[in-house]
């Protein structure tokens, strides 16, 4: 910037705008709740303060308080703003349009002239001398796109142009213009002016210095008195600009006032600037301007030209800001949830793998008491992709125990649980990617007629595809037999499978072991697995002999059959103590998180909780059990371990290879013929030989899950 010598045109540094995000927030709120499509101009107040930093100019700022209140009980009054030393209030007006086209169609020159006219009138009426804050005004045009949270806007700071422009006689740091004594006195007087709540926000004032180098700060209306005294007189103003060679924008209208009202030709001015809250006369400037306006310029009816539209990086275009991240409620919810989980990682669990949770796809079979709770727990852990499968509709008794449903879901026969659950999840956390599948799971012991066969096979196929396309499957249905097919399919696809089952006052939560046909990764040497050496050969090897962990059916002696017919009402409805479902669901999800953080994942060996393990765990989340069985009457839970059974009706190698060989035909046979599975697995044979010992077999074993039956 060339230093301005005497005789050159006095150039002012334009004001710069700064809009606090709260301003847009309140404007949005006003638009949505109060104004609607009414686009009448809105009175606003801007704020500025003298420059407080040698390298950075202060801006003219709009805050939430710049707009009228958005609460319903107050009318749209212009905001009554009491300034303070950090905020000089600038009256202004906002034209907010309803469309982008409307924004561009605004007659900007006309709007600017109208605001300039107000200043001109205040100058001539004397109001500008009484209340000098009106010498500065702010004009804002905007278009708020409240769907995308884009705010287009353009500021103008109306300035009356002198014609011709004023010339600069001299400009230098104030400390170089005042004597040392004068400087000290001026600083003191200005600091006093700034510290008093009455004058702190009065941005234009007079500084008069008497022959004793004693300075006094006066209001503009005292000008005549000061001139009479014949003392040194400076026209001072709060200058937001920091530049050493240019005064700030507010001086423009100040000079217009001085010329129009008092007809002064030579004006000595003080650009008042501060540092750390105190007058800084090195940063402040004293200058002398020469005003030589044309004849007639001062006449009231002849309104001067106005300039002042703000440039956007040097271009005459509006600005735009996108605030979706801080204003869109969904985005805020996402960032809050993320931050929460990251906090857990910082504070307590540095090895927490959030990425795996975010990308995990979970399939929940059953959207009842267990399904609803598991879904919520998964979301709390940061899981976003959840699929719920359920055939039923929400019944009137459900909302009490099934935490995703409310009464509305029960009306008119009840919505499908799967769809209602998805809706509910989205209301809780809009960013969830939830899907609902309305489907019945084909079950052994519930034979199908030939007409239904086709659709049942389709269901089997769909279930298989679902299992294949997800990473984790939760078995949360209310019957044993409905768990059979999913268990088989999961064992076939080697998917992480978690079962939760409820008795009246007891529960079981377990993770299924890996399927029978999988290469076991090289685990610890203690397994003494000679097969582990030749990984290539393991693809089709039967791993039953490797003590893989069992599934839900591994301990059963009978195949799953129809457990729902011929039962009393309370058995059919699986009524349980209400506390069980939340406990079991929570444990199921925590167990899953444990698996995900275990280096061996689905192949992880099982650990048993014992009191001697204390607080030191190998893994940060603690032990990884196989089964957790809990009893409410005892307020106790135990961790158990069960290995897979060679005769398991769901996951043994015989069954899985039959499935692989014959596919849907095998399934159909299992569904339609109650004893088929027992025959295939050799259980029939086993029972026959056991019967010959004349032992009593309980026919109804499947009801009780609270006893471990060792084979």
């Amino acid at each position, binding site marked *: 910037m060339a230093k301005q010598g005497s005789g050159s045109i006095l150039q002012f540094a334009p004001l710069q705008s700064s809009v606090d995000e709260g301003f847009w927030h309140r404007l949005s709120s006003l638009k949505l709740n109060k104004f609607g499509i009414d686009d009448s101009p809105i009175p606003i107040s801007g704020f500025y303060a003298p420059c407080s930093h040698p390298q950075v100019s202060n801006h003219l700022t709009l805050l939430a308080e710049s707009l009228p209140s958005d609460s319903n009980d107050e009318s749209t009054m212009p905001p009554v703003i009491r300034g303070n030393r950090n905020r000089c209030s600038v009256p202004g007006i906002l034209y907010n349009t309803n469309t982008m086209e409307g924004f561009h169609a605004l007659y900007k020159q006309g709007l600017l002239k109208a605001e300039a006219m107000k200043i001109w009138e205040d100058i001539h009426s004397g109001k500008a001398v009484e209340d000098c804050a009106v010498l500065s005004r702010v004009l804002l045009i905007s278009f708020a796109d409240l769907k995308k949270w884009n705010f287009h806007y353009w500021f103008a700071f109306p300035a009356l142009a002198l014609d011709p422009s*004023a010339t600069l006689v001299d400009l230098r740091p104030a400390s170089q213009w005042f004597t040392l004594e004068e400087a000290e006195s001026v600083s003191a007087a200005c600091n006093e002016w700034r510290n008093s709540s009455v004058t702190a926000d009065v941005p234009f004032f007079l500084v008069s210095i008497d022959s004793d180098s004693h300075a006094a700060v006066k209001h503009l209306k005292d000008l005549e008195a000061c001139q009479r005294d014949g003392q040194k007189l400076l026209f001072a103003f709060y200058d937001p600009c920091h530049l050493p060679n240019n005064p700030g924008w507010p001086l423009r209208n100040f000079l217009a006032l001085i010329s129009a009202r008092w007809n002064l030709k030579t004006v000595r001015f003080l650009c008042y600037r501060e540092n750390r809250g105190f007058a800084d006369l090195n940063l402040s400037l004293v200058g002398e301007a020469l005003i030589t306006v044309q004849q007639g310029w001062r006449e009231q009816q002849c309104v001067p030209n106005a*300039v002042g539209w703000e440039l956007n990086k040097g271009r*005459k275009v509006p600005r*735009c800001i996108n605030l979706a*991240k*801080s204003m869109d409620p969904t985005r805020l919810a996402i960032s809050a949830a993320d931050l929460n989980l990251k906090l857990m990682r910082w504070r307590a669990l540095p090895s927490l793998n959030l990425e795996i949770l975010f990308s995990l796809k979970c399939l929940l079979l059953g959207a009842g008491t267990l399904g609803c709770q598991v879904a919520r727990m998964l979301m709390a852990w940061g899981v976003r992709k959840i699929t719920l499968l359920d055939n039923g509709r929400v019944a009137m008794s459900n909302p009490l125990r099934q935490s995703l449903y409310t009464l509305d879901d029960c009306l008119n026969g009840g919505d499908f649980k799967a769809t209602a659950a998805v809706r509910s999840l989205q209301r809780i956390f809009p960013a969830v990617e939830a899907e609902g599948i309305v489907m019945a799971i084909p079950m052994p012991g519930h034979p199908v007629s030939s007409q239904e066969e086709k659709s049942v096979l389709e269901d089997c196929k769909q279930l298989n595809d679902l299992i294949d396309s997800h990473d984790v499957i939760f078995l949360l249905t209310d019957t044993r037999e409905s768990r059979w097919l999913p268990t088989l399919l999961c064992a076939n696809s080697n998917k992480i499978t978690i079962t939760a089952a409820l008795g009246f006052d007891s529960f079981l939560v377990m993770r299924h072991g890996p399927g029978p046909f999988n290469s076991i990764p090289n685990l610890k040497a203690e397994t003494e697995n000679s097969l582990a050496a030749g990984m290539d050969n393991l693809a089709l090897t039967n791993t039953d002999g490797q003590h893989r962990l069992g599934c839900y059916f591994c301990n059963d002696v009978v195949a799953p059959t129809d457990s729902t017919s011929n039962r009393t009402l309370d058995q059919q409805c699986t009524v349980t103590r209400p506390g069980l479902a939340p406990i079991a669901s929570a444990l199921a999800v925590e167990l899953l998180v444990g698996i995900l953080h275990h280096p061996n994942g689905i192949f992880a060996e099982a650990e048993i909780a014992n009191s001697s393990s204390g607080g030191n765990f190998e893994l940060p989340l603690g032990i990884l059990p196989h089964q957790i069985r809990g009893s409410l009457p005892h307020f106790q839970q135990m961790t158990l371990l069960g290995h897979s059974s060679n005769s398991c009706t769901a996951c043994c190698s015989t069954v899985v290879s039959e499935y692989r060989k014959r596919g849907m035909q095998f399934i159909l046979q299992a569904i339609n013929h109650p004893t088929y599975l027992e025959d295939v697995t050799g259980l029939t044979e086993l029972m026959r030989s056991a019967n010959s010992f004349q032992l009593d077999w309980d026919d109804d074993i499947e009801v009780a899950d609270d006893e471990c039956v060792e084979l």
Partner: protein
Amino acid sequence: MQKEDIDQISQIDTREEETCCSRNEDVLDDATLVQSNHHELHYCDFHIVYSSTFRVPVLYFRAYCSDGRPLPLDEIEKELPACASKELSKKKWTFITQEEHPYLKRPWYKLHPCGTAEWMKLLFLSDTANPKFEVVLELYLLSWFSVVGQVFGLRFYFKISN
């Protein structure tokens, strides 16, 4: 993708406005300084708010660009002086949450106050004299600030305390 939209709009405006401006000089005149350097500045506001739940002062902060766009936490952390980000990572009690500012009702970040009472006790443990309340209050705030300020590399100027 939105950035492209904005630029498109700006393009339209440029054409419109430049024709507009050649007719009416409503933007610049010879008395307007035209600046060529446009520095991007980041601002950070700090508020000290009393928490009635924890009964201690809490440091709230937020950062934004000169056009008002808020800066996310990871960008703020990048700009902290090196010693400060070390403080942030090592001390167990300095962690940052995002919460609604109690008065401004907008999302701000804050240094969580759950540990403040504890470490303030340590600072004051040795103080056995019974000074006047105003002195205690000032001492408390100074001590508190000297600790939390470290997280941001904020230093304290004693001139203010006089």
